[in-house]
């Protein structure tokens, strides 16, 4: 304890109260995954698990989930690969137009998605590309790119350039050095960047809604179902499942991390 810190009950109770406010609406919503009725209103109608069993029988829902996984996996892979190239170029080379490249790369963080969405829609119809899952994936590479780039740049700042020079002095070619020295060293950042891009794509609706073709992603499907009360409990049941799975993965990773007793990586996924 330094002299500057004080004890008090005000800040902790504020934190826990805010946390309660954050969770309460979600918990109220999740209750309806187990409620034996299709209308999201009180009073409750009794406990049921049928929404969870019907969930897997709802083909359109499962399809949209599969579409979302494919789009998120593909777009995050491309975004992270491109961001890795971009981050190495920016951090290891001096070139004219670096500032311009960086401003353009970070642009998706500063452009409201409604603008990005209509711009992409206009572009697709001008070029004559039909809208499909491919166009959503292309849009999501652009949306996920700045997140991956920022995470990778932060990692490249943190490691010793002399390792690369040493490798090349020992006779490795530049590309060998990249593959055998640089990439393994920034692997955690590549993973963090990929995960962030995946999450962003998986939940993205505003842009996807404009460049979607006949096959919807999960958020697009969700949106179309929000006004049809009959399907809502199933949708909420699915959200409950997805949350349970992500929480399980997260705590397993945390547990493995503790097990290996490594110092925590200082990468926060979202930073301005």
């Amino acid at each position: 304890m330094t002299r500057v810190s004080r004890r008090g009950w005000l800040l902790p109770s504020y934190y826990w109260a805010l946390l309660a406010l954050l969770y309460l609406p979600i918990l109220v919503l999740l209750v309806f995954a187990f409620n034996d009725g299709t209308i999201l209103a009180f009073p409750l109608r009794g406990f049921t698990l049928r929404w969870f069993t019907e969930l897997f029988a709802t083909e359109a829902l499962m399809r949209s989930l599969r579409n979302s996984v494919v789009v998120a996996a593909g777009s995050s892979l491309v975004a992270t690969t491109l961001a890795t190239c971009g981050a190495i170029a920016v951090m290891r080379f001096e070139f004219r137009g670096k500032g311009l490249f960086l401003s353009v790369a970070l642009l998706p963080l500063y452009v409201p998605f409604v603008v990005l969405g209509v711009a992409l829609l206009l572009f697709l119809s001008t070029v004559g590309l039909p809208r499909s899952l491919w166009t959503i994936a292309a849009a999501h590479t652009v949306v996920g790119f700045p997140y991956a780039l920022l995470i990778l740049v932060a990692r490249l700042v943190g490691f010793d350039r002399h390792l690369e020079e040493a490798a090349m002095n020992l006779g490795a070619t530049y590309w060998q050095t990249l593959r055998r020295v640089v990439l393994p060293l920034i692997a955690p950042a590549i993973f963090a960047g990929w995960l962030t891009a995946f999450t962003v794509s998986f939940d993205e609706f505003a842009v996807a809604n404009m460049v979607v073709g006949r096959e919807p992603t999960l958020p697009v499907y969700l949106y179309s179902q929000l006004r049809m009360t009959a399907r809502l409990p199933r949708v909420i049941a699915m959200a409950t499942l997805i949350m349970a799975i992500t929480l399980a993965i997260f705590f397993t990773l945390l547990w493995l991390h503790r097990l290996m007793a490594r110092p925590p990586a200082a990468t926060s996924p979202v930073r301005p």
Partner: protein
Amino acid sequence: MPAESRRRLTALLAPPALWLGAFLVAPLLLLSAYSFRAGVGGALFRDWVPTLEQYRILLGTPAFLRLLALSVGIALLVAVLATLFAYPVAYYLVFRVRERAGVYIVLLLIPFWISYLLRVMAWKVVLGEGGAVNSLLLSAGLIHEPISALFYSRLAVVVTLVYVWTPFVALPIIATLYRIDRALLEAAASLGATPWQRFWRVTAPLSLPGVLAGAVMVFIPTVGEYVTPSLVGGSSGSMYGNIIFDFFGRSANWPLGAALAVVMLALTLGLVGATSRLTRLERFIG
């Protein structure tokens, strides 16, 4: 630069540059070009003679300007409220919780793993006509009819957006608070500053870049919102983003929609430019 080095740079830089050029720069340039079209009909670029026609219509329609002002107002309100709510949390985590702050931050961010649309929907279950608040009030006998004004209103849009963004704003504030040199606070204390003086004269000014970054991070997506208003805003809760969306959808007037979008783009990029200069200025002073 030696030729070899230049070749490497090209190999690394070309893929992301070309990709962003095709799927980000070209669409935005096309959008701008489109906003200078005279009308809806005709081939895209064969008859393209740049005019300010769409902007004249935009400026001549008070409803557009009113909606733009309203959206800016809502976005400002949401940004200020979310920042105010998030600041004490960030302060608590950095200065009190410290080592275990990671777990506390994760607790704060877990709601983000639920679909954005469902988090918005959650408020319908809380505020809607058959929702939790109305049911509680009804069963307590405080009201006899459900209050419909709680939902499908501008207020519901603000409440929902503040709810969605508050945990997110805490992150940049936490980042700047961490970087504050504790020695400064101890120096202030030993020079006789009271806790409040230490906060207002040392901590608060030094955390300003994080506060500003957080507020901008909320303002930009909020000012362009069209999804949340369409879900919880009802007919009176529409925002500027909704008319852009409508001009590209139902009421198909792409040139006018493009002009509206360009105005919004200029607004947000101008804001980013202004604030990034401010935060850099802050760095010089700090």
